[in-house]
């Protein structure tokens, strides 16, 4: 596939993820972000949240994974050059069953050298990120 074949507005990929509490424990250890609202129900409730929430950066990290997996699938050598997100709503992660996320990317702009994706993430049908943007550049 050539990047120039991508059309603005087309869906590049839709990737589902399930997030469970142990994922957040692993991410806290890996990132050094040990804020208890991501690990402990009592701390989350004390902060006015309904339950434990995922780190915003965990969700953004899953978006990076979906983007990189898609990039690898294109057969082109692509490098991520810009990546941004705004955290709109918390991702609530119940102890039982966790949270289901759907990451969906649409092509915002594409030419022979680069592609810009607009990425939405929904949890329980609600958008948790104001659209994220990812720009990939062909090497």
């Amino acid at each position, binding site marked *: 596939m050539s990047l120039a074949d991508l059309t603005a507005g087309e869906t590049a990929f839709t990737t589902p993820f399930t997030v469970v509490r142990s*994922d957040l424990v*692993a*991410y806290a*250890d*890996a*990132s*050094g*972000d040990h804020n208890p609202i991501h690990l402990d129900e009592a701390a989350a409730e004390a902060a006015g949240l309904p339950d434990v929430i995922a780190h*915003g*950066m*965990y969700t*953004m*990290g*899953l978006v*990076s*994974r979906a*983007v*990189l997996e898609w990039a690898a699938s294109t057969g082109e050598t692509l*490098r*991520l*050059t*810009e*990546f*941004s*997100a*705004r*955290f709109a709503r918390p991702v609530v992660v119940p102890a039982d069953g966790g949270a289901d996320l759907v990451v969906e990317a649409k092509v915002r702009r594409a030419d022979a050298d680069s592609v810009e994706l607009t990425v939405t993430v929904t949890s329980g049908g609600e958008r948790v990120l104001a659209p994220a943007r990812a720009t990939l550049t062909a090497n």
Partner: protein
Amino acid sequence: MLNPSYVGRSLPTTAPVTITAESVTRFARSLGLADDGSVPPTYLISLTLPAADPLVDDPEFGLDFSRVLHREQRFAYHRELRAGDAVACTVTVESVKTVAGNDLLALHTGVTDAEGLAAEVWTTLFVAGDPS
């Protein structure tokens, strides 16, 4: 309330730290990313937020991290970073905006390696106003 006189101020550049293969592996695995030695896209936050600690520790600035929510995050990658690279961080207070008694704090961090600027990281934090 944050002290607006800090806008434009940069913290002293941190001492270079080597990005260890172990920390890259742990971070990549926690997100299910391929572990190929390249630094994961969001890994840099684990360096840039600690680099801003002097602001949290500075009573003159007034940043209470227990009232902080992460609002926005942006990365620009100028070249690939890999495990084994040594990087230093320079944090600058870009803006402080007060909206309805809450503060929005925008930080910019330049991440430099031996060749110069390798990445830039922008973080916007929402700091809830003190209810008292």
